[in-house]
């Protein structure tokens, strides 16, 4: 099914390094990802796994001490990984690829009206005059669910609640009709009901404008709700990806097991919640073999020696684990994960 769709972004083996007080830190180690037109791809993974850094590199928004050391970011016939000048990025940012960040309370300039802040991108990217830009901005505010937009237009950020501010941020990011919208934990700071409304708004915007969304989150409930596909990231690497039901009901990488097993929603009464032991690897050091092996109670010998390649589970589902090798021993997934598979046959609803 996905083969027929158009790939809009191809990211290949991207390595991102930071220079920290003279030492090199590798935050993203050879991560790859494809994004199709109009889809929503979720990236999940624990804190520090490199989700933000990885996606920021698509807009050239890495901190000054960071750089894409190797790999390709292919978009519209150009390799963004080779961009060196600010002017090159100005043609991409906002108008082709836009990004919204986690904290809506600080994402807006406190001293400018929200009207000004939407209008400035519209006049810049779409060449409209002030009046047209205002009309367009009002329309955008309406689309993200802000009532009496005309009055709200002249107000300052502090006059908005957190949820309302995030809507404004979304309106700004979407105002230039980008092809790709990267949402970095956009609803983490908000309460659950508002979160749900904002996700609905996003989906609606996506349907209307046909943009692709990369959605970074810790919340697997949100993933089930919004994502067509899921990529699981661990220690700067994508370790498994596939269509959402595939990854949720039939995860193959031990890290994906651990991640899903630690979800409170999946636990049975009276059963201890699953926790991942140990800490993520030190990013200053070279990693040998499977990065997750030291924390994986089911690790094989080879996991410590050689990094696994991609193995296909289906046409759309891939995982980077030796367990999928034809001569690998039978390793049982945790009980919780096995149950998932059974439940999937009955059609479990993850939506929150």
């Amino acid at each position, binding site marked *: 099914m996905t083969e027929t769709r158009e790939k809009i972004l191809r990211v290949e083996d991207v390595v991102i390094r930071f220079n920290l007080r003279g030492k090199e830190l590798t935050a993203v180690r050879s991560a790859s990802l494809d994004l199709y037109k109009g889809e929503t791809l979720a990236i999940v993974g624990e804190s520090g796994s490199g989700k933000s850094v990885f996606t920021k590199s698509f*807009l050239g*928004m890495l901190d000054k001490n960071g750089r894409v050391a190797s790999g390709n970011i292919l978009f519209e016939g150009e390799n963004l990984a080779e961009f060196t000048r*600010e002017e090159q990025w*100005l043609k*991409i*940012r*906002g*108008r082709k690829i*836009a*990004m*919204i*960040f986690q*904290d809506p309370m*600080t*994402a*807006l*300039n*406190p*001293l*400018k009206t929200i009207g000004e802040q939407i209008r*400035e*991108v519209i006049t*810049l*990217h779409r060449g409209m005059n002030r009046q047209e830009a205002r009309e367009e901005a009002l329309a955008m505010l309406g689309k993200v669910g802000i009532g009496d937009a005309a009055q709200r237009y002249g107000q*300052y950020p*502090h*006059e908005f609640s957190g949820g309302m501010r995030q809507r404004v*941020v979304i309106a*700004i*990011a979407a105002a*230039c009709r980008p092809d790709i919208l990267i949402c970095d934990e956009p609803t983490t700071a908000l309460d659950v009901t508002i979160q749900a409304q904002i996700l609905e708004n996003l989906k609606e915007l996506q349907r209307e404008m046909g943009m692709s969304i990369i959605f970074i989150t810790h919340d697997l409930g949100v993933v089930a709700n919004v994502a067509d596909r899921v990529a699981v990231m661990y220690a700067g690497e994508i370790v498994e990806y596939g269509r959402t039901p595939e990854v949720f009901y039939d995860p193959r990488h031990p890290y994906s097991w651990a991640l899903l097993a630690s979800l409170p929603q999946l636990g049975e009464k009276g059963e201890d919640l699953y926790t991942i032991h140990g800490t993520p690897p030190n990013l200053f050091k070279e990693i040998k073999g499977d990065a997750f092996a030291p924390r994986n109670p089911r690790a094989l010998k080879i996991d410590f020696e050689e990094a696994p390649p991609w193995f296909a589970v289906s046409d759309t589902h891939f995982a980077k684990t030796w367990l999928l090798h034809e001569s690998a021993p039978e390793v049982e997934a945790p009980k919780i994960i096995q149950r998932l598979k059974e439940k999937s046959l009955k059609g479990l609803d993850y939506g929150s």
Partner: protein
Amino acid sequence: MSRYIVKRILQSLLTVVIVVIAVFLLLRLMPTSGYFTRDDYINMTEEMRSAYLRNLGITDPAVIQLQRFFAGVFRGDLGRSITVYPKLPISTILAEKVPYSLWFGLASMFISVTLGFGLGILMARFKDRWPDHLGTAYVVAVRAIPSLIYLFLIQIWVTGIMRWPMVFYEDRPVTWILPVVSLSLTGIAWYGIWLRRFMVDEENRDYIKFARSKGLSQKYIMRHHVLRNAVVPLVQYLPVQLLLTIAGSLIIESIYSIPGMGGLLVYAIKQQDNNLVQVLVLIYAVLGVAGVFVGDLLMAFVDPRIRLAEKKKKKEALRV
């Protein structure tokens, strides 16, 4: 908003009155010999002295004297100088001296703000590169070296090289240059370092990151977001500095022999000219308090959050 203004005006008036009363009462603790010029004091007998003091009203209870002082101020009568310019009405002295300090002050403030802002913008724009280092060196130099040293050096070298007169002559405009420049040196450093600091603060804020991700150019962001927001905290101080230019500068006015206000207060205190001290304290208190007040108003004008803080408080008060 208007309630806020009225409240602040009343507060300001109260502050001024308290300051003036405090100084007034402190001055009553000084020996009464300060009310005489030296010759008078020597030539008078003890009786003549007490008659003179009674005549001046110094022997009345402090409350009466205070009342008299304020009544005089309201009538526009600031009293007369005692020892610094014997018998001369203080208003005449001020009318003589204020214009010098004011014009030099205004000129130097204009230069300080324009050059200081320019310096701050350059330093922030080229942070950690040579313009920033150069600017920092300048600021450190101006602050660390005692001003007398470099002010003297400037006076001696520049007047020597340019063959200008050493001191100020009202009818020779070239002699106006050095005092104005000298007056501006610290101001430029002050505005420069603070604007740089506020701009760097702003640049690291999340909304700047978001603005960049919107595709706005560095130049646009600098001008319309960073600079705009960084100026706001400085705006508050402009009115005080503007008003207090009247006070003049002790060092610069004395090395260039400018007959301005600089040092008048110090001199009046040394000479125990209580009347003059009182009036000067009153004036500086009024200017200082008014400056802070106008600064706060300006702040509320440029920072929308402040206006609302007032409204919100009111709403909350109503809710309780």
